[in-house]
Each structure stands twice: as structure tokens, then as C-alpha cells.
């Protein structure tokens, strides 16, 4: 399997919130990168993960499936997932797959973080 063309950098915002900056192509092949980022972002205190899709270049249905796995793992840890930076197209895909019912979508990082603070 070829190396995934993606990077995911984790930023901590306070004790309980982490932002994952996703840049590149989200397919099932990038699962190790995402899960590594998830483990980095989850230090036992993290109650909310914010996914930044502003750098998303491409995503296929394998990528959506991978987000489902992330969702399952986050739910097991009682963590909430939020997202921002989605293009109109991928926002529609989130709605079509009803992922938006589990991963709250915001227009900006500020609103995502404000939502996290609620």
C-alpha cells in the first residue's frame, strides 16, 4: 500500500480540547496517520476533538468509513467530535451519510471552539 498523502497535526486548546489539522487526501489508507493523531490528541483529559478540514484536498468513501471508525473510538472514550473547514461538497457528503448528526459541523475554528466551550 502506498504511503498516504496526508498530514495530521494536533494542537491542544486548553486541557480538554484538541484540534487536528488535516491536510491532504483522506482515504482508508491514511488510517494509521489519523489514529496516531487521535492517540496524540487523547491524553485522558480530552473530551472533545475538533477536526480541521480546511486543508482537505480529496476524500473517498473509504475516508468516510475511516471517520466512522474514529467516531466509534471517540464515542467509546465519551469524547465529542466536531469539524470545520469543510467545502460545500464535503459538507453535503457528511449530510448524505448522516455523519453530521454525530460530528457537529461549524463554519470556523472559532465557532467550533466556542461550541466546544458550551
Amino acid at each position, binding site marked *: *500500500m*502506498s504511503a498516504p498523502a496526508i498530514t495530521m497535526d494536533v494542537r491542544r486548546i486548553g486541557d480538554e480540547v484538541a484540534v487536528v489539522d488535516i*491536510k*491532504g*487526501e483522506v*482515504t*482508508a*489508507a*491514511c*488510517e*494509521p496517520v489519523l489514529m496516531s493523531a487521535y492517540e496524540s490528541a487523547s491524553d485522558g483529559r480530552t473530551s472533545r476533538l475538533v477536526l480541521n478540514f*480546511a*486543508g*482537505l*484536498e*480529496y*476524500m*473517498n*468513501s*473509504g*475516508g468516510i*468509513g*475511516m471517520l*466512522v*471508525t474514529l*467516531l*466509534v473510538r471517540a464515542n467509546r472514550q465519551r469524547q465529542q467530535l466536531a469539524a470545520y473547514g469543510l*467545502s*460545500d*461538497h*464535503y459538507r*453535503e*457528503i457528511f*449530510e*448524505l*451519510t*448522516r*455523519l453530521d*448528526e*454525530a460530528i457537529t459541523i461549524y463554519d470556523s475554528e472559532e465557532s467550533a471552539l466556542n461550541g466546544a466551550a458550551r
Partner: protein
Amino acid sequence: MTETAGPDRVRSAEQIGLSAREAAATPPPHNEPAAGPDAPSNRNGPPRNATSWAKKVERLEVNPRDGVRGTNVAGRRLTGPVQGFGKMWQKSYRMKAGSQIEPEQAIATWKEHFPEFWPKGNRFAGALTGIKPGDVALLDLAIGGGVKLSTGVFVLYADAESFTLMTPQGHMFAG
């Protein structure tokens, strides 16, 4: 063909995508500039695989097809991961097809002949155009004792190397 363990046990990338090949798929070449973080003006344009995705639907629309009942899925909503797949939300199967077969060949054959691959007594009725994003394929399934179960599936995604089906409310995989 072998069945791979479910999501609790599988660590490979194939665990999610309903298509193992898709996990390793390199996105098709394209001439459009990358819509990366340095090119925000392109972000609201369609991605290069936009036509591989189905358009958003609120409820399924179904055209009756000869020889299959299954129209009972008309008007139903799709079920996503939030609504629950239970332990059936993902299954991975692997088989050796030989080194001479390219992924595009395998998927093309699968798409063309998918209705023929069902066990005796079962019927899969897709669109005449084949498996295309947004299609609703109707299913009549023999579940034993002479009983038939009628349902359908929505084609969420289809490209040269994969296709993904999504279940509506009431489907036995829909949790």
C-alpha cells in the same frame, strides 16, 4: 474467500471502506490544481471525484423494476453510522484473484455482473446503466422457509476501483 474480523479486531485500512482496493487506491490523475490550504479560492469547487459521489437525497426514490418487489424502500431515509450498524457495519472479505487482474478490471466486471453474483433465489435489480452513484438497487432475498425479504440499497459512491452501498431504514444491516 476468507472473512476478516470486524472493526474491533482488524487494524488494516480495509476495515472501513467496504472495498479493500479503495484503501490502497491512488486518486485518479487530474489536471486541476490542488485545493490545499494555500488555495482557498478552489475549496468550494467540486473535487476531482465529485461525480463518484451520489447527490444528497432526503428520502429514497425508487422506480419499479420487473421481477423484483423491493419498492418498499421508497420514501425511506438512509441510515448512517449514528443510527447504528451494530456489528454488521463493516465486514471485510478477501480472496485471491490472481496477479493478472487489475483493480479496475475486477470492479468493472463486478459492476457489470453484480446481479448475477447473488445466491439462487435472490434477486438484485440495479439500474440498467449499472452501478452508478445515486442509484437505488432493489433486492429480493430468500431468507429461508420460502420467505422472501424485499429491500434495497443506495449507491453512495462508485469509481473505477470501488463502489460503496448504503442501507435505508429497515434494512437488516441497518442496526
